[in-house]
């Protein structure tokens, strides 16, 4: 298999809106994020934070009633994906960008064997050498600890959840895409299966020289596999930086609160604290000011009116008025 270099991705000022009876509401409010070539980036956020919308934007696949209102999604070798349409876009999906959808274990066609679905995929991308495609698929499945021949002859109901998840990853990689997006790759899997899948993701990433993006709500999953971690809240990236640094010394109050809310296996369990309040939904994201201020212990006057700009310093990006400057919180609040 040919090895091309891993692509870099640059998302700039991306705004995605969804049409609702209350008008067009922004699911992403001017997001900028770069994926360095050859790295695994994680996006962590709660439901409604816009993480899946951001991932879909990499394929220019935001479905109506949503639409990309403005912004640029630049992928090396593809250009600005937002400008691609029709046939060009169809070809890019799968070939250049592999995508493992949320609940991939339920996204196989129940009426066709995995092998048949693979051949359909090959034909739709004008592969002349279908036997070679099957061979690659078998090798990939074998790489992930499955009996490739058997899996290709199986229907989805004959495979376990963990096996289907691996089939999903095979589909994302088999066309030799070098940018791979995994949306919640391990949700609904058991702990031991999750650990096995994450190891596979990491190994395949290194072996094939990929740029990988993992979307998850689970900080642990992101911590386990990623090099770089972006935290999303209310349609914004509030913090981004090297994973160990973001986890070890979080700067944004939301990141701090989220890490503190994880019960751990060692140390004083009562250190774990819930975040007060609840995450905003599409309709309740504040129109102006910081999206996190309602739950923030560091809230200051300016947070009510001005949406904080992401500021990058020593490879760490944080969007918070109260971080990195001398400020007295006017509403002192402790997590309770």
């Amino acid at each position, binding site marked *: 298999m040919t090895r091309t270099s891993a692509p870099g991705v640059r998302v700039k000022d991306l705004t995605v809106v969804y049409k609702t009876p209350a008008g067009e509401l922004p699911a992403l409010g001017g997001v900028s994020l770069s994926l360095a070539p050859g790295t695994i980036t994680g996006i962590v956020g*709660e439901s409604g934070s816009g993480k899946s919308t951001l991932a879909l934007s990499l394929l220019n696949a935001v479905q109506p009633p949503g639409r990309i209102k403005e912004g640029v999604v630049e992928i090396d070798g593809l250009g600005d994906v937002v400008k691609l349409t029709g046939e060009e876009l169809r070809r890019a999906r799968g070939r250049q960008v592999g995508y493992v959808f949320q609940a991939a274990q339920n996204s196989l066609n129940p009426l066709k064997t995995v092998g048949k679905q693979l051949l359909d995929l090959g034909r739709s991308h004008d592969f002349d050498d279908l036997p070679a495609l099957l061979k690659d698929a078998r090798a990939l499945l074998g790489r992930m600890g499955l009996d490739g021949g058997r899996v290709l002859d199986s229907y989805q109901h004959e495979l376990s959840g963990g096996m289907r998840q691996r089939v999903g990853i095979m589909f994302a990689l088999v066309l030799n895409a070098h940018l791979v997006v995994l949306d919640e790759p391990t949700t609904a899997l058991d702990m*031991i299966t999750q650990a096995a899948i994450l190891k596979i993701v990491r190994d395949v990433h290194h072996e094939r020289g990929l740029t990988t993006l993992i979307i998850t709500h689970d900080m642990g999953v992101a*911590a386990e596999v990623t090099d770089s971690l972006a935290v999303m809240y209310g349609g914004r990236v509030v913090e981004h930086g090297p994973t160990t640094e973001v986890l070890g010394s979080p700067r944004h109050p939301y990141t701090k609160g989220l890490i503190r809310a994880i019960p751990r*296996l060692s140390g004083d369990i009562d250190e774990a604290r819930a975040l007060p309040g609840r995450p905003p939904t599409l309709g309740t994201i504040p129109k102006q000011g910081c999206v996190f201020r309602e739950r923030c212990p560091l809230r200051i006057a300016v947070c009510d009116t001005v949406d904080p700009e992401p500021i990058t310093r020593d490879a760490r990006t944080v969007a918070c008025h109260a971080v990195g400057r001398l400020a007295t919180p006017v509403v002192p609040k402790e997590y309770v």
Partner: protein
Amino acid sequence: MITASGITKTYKQRGNLLGARAVPALRGVDFAIERGGAVTFIGESGCGKTTLGRIVAGLETYDGGDIVIDGTPMSSLKPRHREPFFRRIQLIHQDPYSALNPTRTIHQTLAAPLALRAKQTGRDKAWMEERARELLALVGIDPGYVLPRYPHQLSGGMRQRVVIARALTVDPEVLVADESVSMIDVSLRLGVLALLKDLRERLNVSVLFITHDIATARYIGGDGELYVIYRGQVVESGPTESVISGPIHPYTQSLLSAIPVLHGVERPGPERVVPTEALNEAHPDTGCLFARRCPFRTDRCEAAAPALVSDGDQRHACYHPQRRDVIPVEAVA
């Protein structure tokens, strides 16, 4: 006080020409729940932990063994006489999105069981109204906001609190919480867990916590007992903290090793155990059920099943017991 001994349950699958296939869900499980105590069942999907929870809540029958509630064996009673016993044990469902009737307001949802309660205790309608508000306040939500609303108007965390409030209407002694937070947003999860912990302390209710996430078990039932269930069998049990910090059975060790490490905050445990193959229910039932996946198996493991034996304050079913240090350690900054 509830004790269960030797609970077995076999599901019959509709058969083919060769006859029905029996699927053992529980293969003889013993446990005890004390008043105000916490008991956790942990295991992978399909291990039987949910079935066990439903049996304890009286929602499922069992084939063998017995449940004794405050000295009364359930097998000695006719099914309709068991009801008052099992009413003291309330199940909190996994999915707060489907556990509430979408066509009823929260007020209606709470009124039905409260009416029953009022009738039993000879109280009036005003008490019901009062009690509904009191319970919602107890679970940490604003009664004025929630009562007139329908489930779809509430967030997952709020719905789960309503489900808990509904379980509390009949003044239960035991709450069975089956994966109660797995479908709730991360930042809200701990709030619901803290509520269950708080109810234990304030109302002296016992919590039977069923989960695949050991760390949450530690939060709610750190002072209680932990039962590790594998393919319908308890393979290890003991005080929660002891089992987590010094797991003896290789399966417990594998489960704990699989928990993601928060790199930057933690370091991986030095002796992590990875199963040699994936869970396969079709593996033979002879010998140790975990043997096929166990990196430490010997011929003996495949020949005969090890029994649950005591080892200090823990119990385990393994021929080659050895404590291993598998959980992540706090990294020194």
